[in-house]
């Protein structure tokens, strides 16, 4: 719908103002990038102190587990291990050292297995990325279609019925939903492999289980947006002009409602990634989620820290992308440089 640029367009805005606007755009981008750094750094700090400054002692736990079959351990062994992992250093020194290590790309070695963290993460990350991608591929079209169908006719029977679906799904615990799916499709119907497995067929059921809770909240937000936009004056006016409802709904209502929806991208990606903790446990798949769950149990601090920082980088990157894109999508937020969120 963009009109071709006109050859003799008179200056839209005075040159002085557009220079100011450009400067403000640069400032906006810089501020958003700065925010990205702050988020990741804060998550690192928070995770570090939660993991290392709190009362529990990872070394004791580690030794207890490692030597479960081989009798107790001596205090010398404990001291040696503490020194090996740098745990004898003061907290602040370790905080700075760990930060330096992370920045140079070395998150250290696992307390539990003694293997380097990148190796552990690298081994399972592809599984999780595949699952998360599968979840998104299902969740986004599903919630779009459901929301568009729900909001098509305000006050209709269909609307009244469908509007409750997201609420219903959101009330069901995600892990229970996964188990029900597994029971129904693997054990009763035998359509899908029950656990583990590779390939596409093994990916479908977990992806659905992962996508459903995410779709529920996405759909609910989208329906609310669509319903709100339909009440706007300009929609009524377009109807009064005699435009067909299909046109008004898709070209105007949906477009306006999808805009704030974009800002949910970060939350969606976050929801899907974190959902893998549950989904991978339920479906007994190897992956980052399950690695995180087991590391939390064994208090394997280096692994947890690495996963937390990685997650923070991902979420913050998605949010950054949305923030930078938003002014392009919504003309009203251009040249203003204020926060992009509605």
């Amino acid at each position, binding site marked *: 719908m963009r009109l071709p640029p006109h050859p003799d367009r008179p200056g839209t805005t005075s040159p002085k103002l557009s220079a100011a606007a450009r400067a403000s755009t640069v400032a906006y981008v810089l501020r958003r990038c700065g925010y990205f750094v702050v988020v990741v750094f804060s998550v690192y700090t928070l995770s570090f102190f939660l993991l290392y400054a709190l009362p529990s002692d990872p070394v004791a736990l580690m030794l207890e587990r490692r030597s479960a079959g081989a009798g107790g351990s001596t205090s010398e062994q404990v001291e040696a291990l503490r020194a090996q992992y740098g745990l004898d250093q003061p907290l602040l020194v370790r905080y700075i050292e760990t930060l330096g290590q992370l920045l140079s790309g070395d998150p250290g070695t696992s307390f539990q297995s003694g293997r380097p963290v990148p190796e552990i993460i690298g081994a399972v990350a592809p599984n999780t990325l595949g699952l998360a991608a599968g979840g998104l591929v299902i969740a986004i079209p599903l919630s779009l279609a459901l929301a568009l169908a729900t909001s098509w006719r305000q006050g209709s029977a269909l609307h009244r019925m469908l509007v409750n679906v997201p609420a219903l799904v959101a009330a069901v615990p995600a892990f229970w939903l996964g188990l029900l799916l597994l029971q129904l499709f693997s054990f009763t119907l035998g359509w899908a492999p029950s656990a583990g497995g590779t390939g596409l067929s093994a990916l479908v059921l977990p992806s659905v289980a992962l996508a459903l809770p995410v779709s529920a909240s996405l759909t609910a*937000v989208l329906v609310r947006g669509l319903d709100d936009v339909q009440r706007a004056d300009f929609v009524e006016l377009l109807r009064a002009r005699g435009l067909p409802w299909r046109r008004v709904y898709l070209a105007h209502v949906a477009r306006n409602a999808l805009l704030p929806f974009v800002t949910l991208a970060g939350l969606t990606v976050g929801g899907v990634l974190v959902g893998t903790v549950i989904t991978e446990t339920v479906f007994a798949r190897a992956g980052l989620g399950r690695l995180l769950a087991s590391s939390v149990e064994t208090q394997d601090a280096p692994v947890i820290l690495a996963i937390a920082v990685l997650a923070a980088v991902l979420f913050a990157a998605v949010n950054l992308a949305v923030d930078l894109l938003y002014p392009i999508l919504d003309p009203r937020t251009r040249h203003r440089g204020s926060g992009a969120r509605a």
Partner: protein
Amino acid sequence: MTVTTAPPITSRRRASSVPVLALAFLGLAGVAALLPKAVAPHDPFAQDVSQRLRPPSAEHLFGTDELGRDLLSRVVHGTQASLSIALLAVAFAFVASLVIGLTAGYFGGVVDRVLMAVVDVLLALPSLLISLLIVSGLGTGAVNLAVAVGIASVPALARVTRAEVLGVSARTFVEAAKGFGLPGRRVLLRHVLPHARGPITALVALELATMVLSVSALSFLGYGTQPPDPEWGNLIAGGRDYFATAWWLTTLPGAVLAGVVLALHRVGRGLGGSEVGPA
């Protein structure tokens, strides 16, 4: 100044009458949590190997587990653990976020900016991840779980509280009260809080539902109440090993859990909240 005819169907409050069924169900769950011994038909720990993995029957409405324990009794006793952890988490979250939200919303300025910057950073992370981080720091167990789940929901709640306080503070009657010289503290207590209270109460019900879900999910992962003590999440986790043959072990506790969450949503919606979507 014509008021155009607003579609009357949008009124949330009118649409929701008193949710009798939901309240009754919650009442039942409440009784089960307070007096599990009076409600449960059997001893939740009494094993009977001859009766192991029996499907639901008149004697055992929910069937029995792998040790022959009555599942219904275990679910009833689990109610106490699940609901008390969730309530503790809600209490914790609300006190913290009310303090943060009220302070930021009412005082504004630098206080607001600093507090909201912290909240925004935390909001950038999914709450389950925050809970997991805290659990790994504090270790597993019921109280630690409550703290973990509670803290994880503080950022979102603090934002909502602040927005609510700001919304009410911007209303003309609050400015009017400041205008005729009412001291700030009294404006806050008398004009701002009573009006923020309604939406916040609705939020309590909805947040309780979220907490019940989070607590059970973390228990399912094994961070909460440890077996043999029953709790909804760990009952479902325990049933996984048998669920090819004994469907009731996972399905029925899960149904009770989903029922409680639904009922809480219904009540929350009745109070004017909205149940799904990011806060």
